């Protein structure tokens, strides 16, 4: 990790990377024939490799969807696993084209890093994981606890705010990688592991006895997670942004991986616009007319991706909650494709 960030820093410093300052991300990617996508080092449900080395997850589906929109082939992605503290440097230096790595959207990140958030793939919040044997029922009972946290995250700062705000003492032990953090929690170095709730459920699956651990009810922060792209290329910003919107809109219009070909023939005006049989919205983005059907064929609509990776159809079994569509009780809402 040390070496990576140093090399990346030097790369930024020397301006070695050709596309760092140029505004031609789409062309660069097409010439390269590959999308370079920054993901986590292994977080079940969001981005993790299986035993054959294939990456899956909600964040990975964004990479795949963008690749499908650009190349018509969702497999043309090079995944770059990044630790929390190296992720922004990798994006700044041009090593990756998109950062899709459960990253919380905050003002300071949006303004000072030379990068933009393109939307929210998952509305999350920070919670606490503890051993059941401690018999703790609320985060307010955690006074004097030792807390394990991954360094370089918003989590680390929320933690400080929460304990200070509630006049509680604690000891923080911060690790560079998620795996080290969980291992320290498991070994008993800490009483509590804190992170985004979705991550707590995912990491709990990796513990020896998941049933011995419980996620406390308190959610202490807003953590809207989303993909990021570099400043300075608005076309590329639009492409990544509208890839997610297309997935959400597809769910709203009832377009699924199964019925996409059938729906493409529909003569409903909104579907005709989305599938490019009327107008050239895809080409305005710099893509092809059939960009929406390419995306949905590759990864399905937002709801399908959610269910498959983190929702009812996955081991995590997380309820849709806030991440349901706006007209079904959630807050996922995409601007119209027109």
């Amino acid at each position, binding site marked *: *990790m*040390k070496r990576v*960030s*140093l090399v*990346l*820093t030097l790369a*930024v*410093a*020397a*301006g070695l990377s050709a596309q*760092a*300052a140029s505004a031609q991300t789409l062309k660069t990617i097409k010439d390269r024939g590959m999308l370079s996508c920054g993901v986590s080092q292994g977080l079940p449900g969001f981005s993790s490799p299986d035993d054959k080395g294939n990456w899956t997850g909600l964040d990975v589906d964004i990479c795949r969807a963008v690749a499908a929109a650009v190349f018509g082939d969702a497999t043309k992605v090079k995944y770059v696993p990044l630790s*929390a*503290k*190296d*992720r*922004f*440097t990798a994006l*700044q230096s041009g090593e990756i084209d998109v950062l899709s790595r459960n990253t919380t959207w905050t003002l*300071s*990140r949006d*303004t*000072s*890093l*030379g990068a933009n958030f393109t939307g929210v793939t998952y509305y999350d919040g920070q919670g606490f994981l503890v051993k059941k044997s*401690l018999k703790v029922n609320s985060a307010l009972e*955690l*006074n*004097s*606890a*030792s807390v*394990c946290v991954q*360094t*370089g*995250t918003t989590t*680390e*700062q929320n*933690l*400080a*705010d929460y304990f*200070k705000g509630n006049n509680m003492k*604690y*000891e*923080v*032990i*911060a*690790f*560079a990688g998620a795996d*080290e953090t969980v*291992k*320290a929690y498991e*070994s*008993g*170095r800490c*009483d509590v592991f804190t992170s985004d709730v979705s991550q707590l459920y995912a990491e709990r699956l990796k513990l020896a006895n998941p049933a011995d651990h419980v996620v406390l009810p308190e959610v202490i922060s807003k953590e809207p997670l989303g993909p990021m792209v*570099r*400043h*300075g290329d608005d076309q590329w910003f639009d492409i990544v942004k509208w890839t997610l919107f297309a997935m959400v809109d597809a769910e709203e219009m009832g377009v699924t991986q199964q019925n996409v070909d059938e729906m493409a023939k529909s003569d409903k005006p909104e579907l005709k616009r989305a599938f490019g049989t009327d107008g050239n919205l895809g080409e305005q983005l710099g893509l092809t007319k059939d960009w929406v059907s390419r995306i949905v064929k590759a990864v399905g609509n937002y709801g399908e991706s959610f269910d498959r990776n983190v929702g009812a159809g996955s081991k995590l079994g997380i309820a849709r909650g806030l991440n349901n569509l706006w007209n079904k009780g959630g807050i996922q809402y995409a601007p119209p494709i027109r």
Partner: protein
Amino acid sequence: MAIEPRQPPSQFVAKLQRTLGGRAGWGGFVLQLLFVAALAWICYEIVANARANLQAQRITAGFGFLQNTAGFDVSQNLIPYSGSDSYTRVFWVGLLNTLLVSAIGIFFATLIGFLVALGRLSPNWLLSRISGAYVEGVRNLPLLFQILFWYLAVLAALPSPRQSISLFGAFFLSNRGLVIPKPIGDPGFEPFIVAVLVAIAVSIGLWRYSRHQLFQSGKLIMVWPYVLGLLIGLPLLTALIFGAPVTFEMPVLKGFNFASGSRVIPEFVALTLALSTYTAAFIAEIVRAGILSVHKGQMEAGSSLGLQRGSVLRLIVIPQAMRVILPPLTNQYLNLTKNSSLAVAIGYPDLFSVFAGTTLSQTGQAIEIIGITMGVYLLISLVTSAIMSFYGWRLSRSLG
């Protein structure tokens, strides 16, 4: 004292310089000037290019971030620190943690290294074999592996705070570290410190006087009973007059952890153990080589004067061996300091972890932070080298 020349013969040096292209006169000067100019131009290009790229992408640049609030906590701070302090404070906290682990690591590495080297040279078969096995075992395993071993295999196996191992009801060892009673200064504290300082100063004076007498008249004065009496008696006397210098706050288990007392965190223990045992293996070999480089005749001469083995080593062999030992020993000290940045693997909050790690990722200002961090490690290394060079210079003067 006849010591073989250690400088290479001057003819050899001249030949080496000719081979490496050292030129005399104006031609050489102009070439060197051109080289420096080219180097300066490359540096300028790198800086200008970086600045242009940063501006083009609107990445925040400059050192203003150092005044911003850090907003995160650190598990070990030698100076008062809380999340509402600035990144500058984080920098100092991290730097002090690095210096602490390096200084203590260097101390123990040197101690263990010298002992193992002497053990390996010992005529005692078992001792020399055990020392040899230690050196070969420890120096051939990766350092990161050893750090993780101490942290995850040894320290994590300790019981939880509620079941901690207790010594005299005052020291508690658990997987949260070692908790010890915390000394709190009482009114008798200042006189006590003054007494200790006076006792030390007088002891040094006595020792110097005895050496002077030894060299001048060959009279051996036993000073240690007086020194011992001074060091114990004087502080004890002040304590009786002014009252106890400190009281101890006993560790009390409250909630999840010990609420009072001082605590040594396991990350610090694991890192110190790994760094000092690992570096000690290298130091042992350096010291052994240094001692073997001293001519056998020196030792025999010492023995024939009637000195004991320990005195021969201390007074004759080691001072001569030191000039061979010193340069590679300095290298090991520098390595240990730089290796302390592996702390990031076990969550010890050293400079690299809290500043080049957390601060970098929160502010995104990679160039500034990596630049500062590189500068600091460079400075620490140069200062260490300077101290060791000074020591070497004094040593060579005293050897004549």
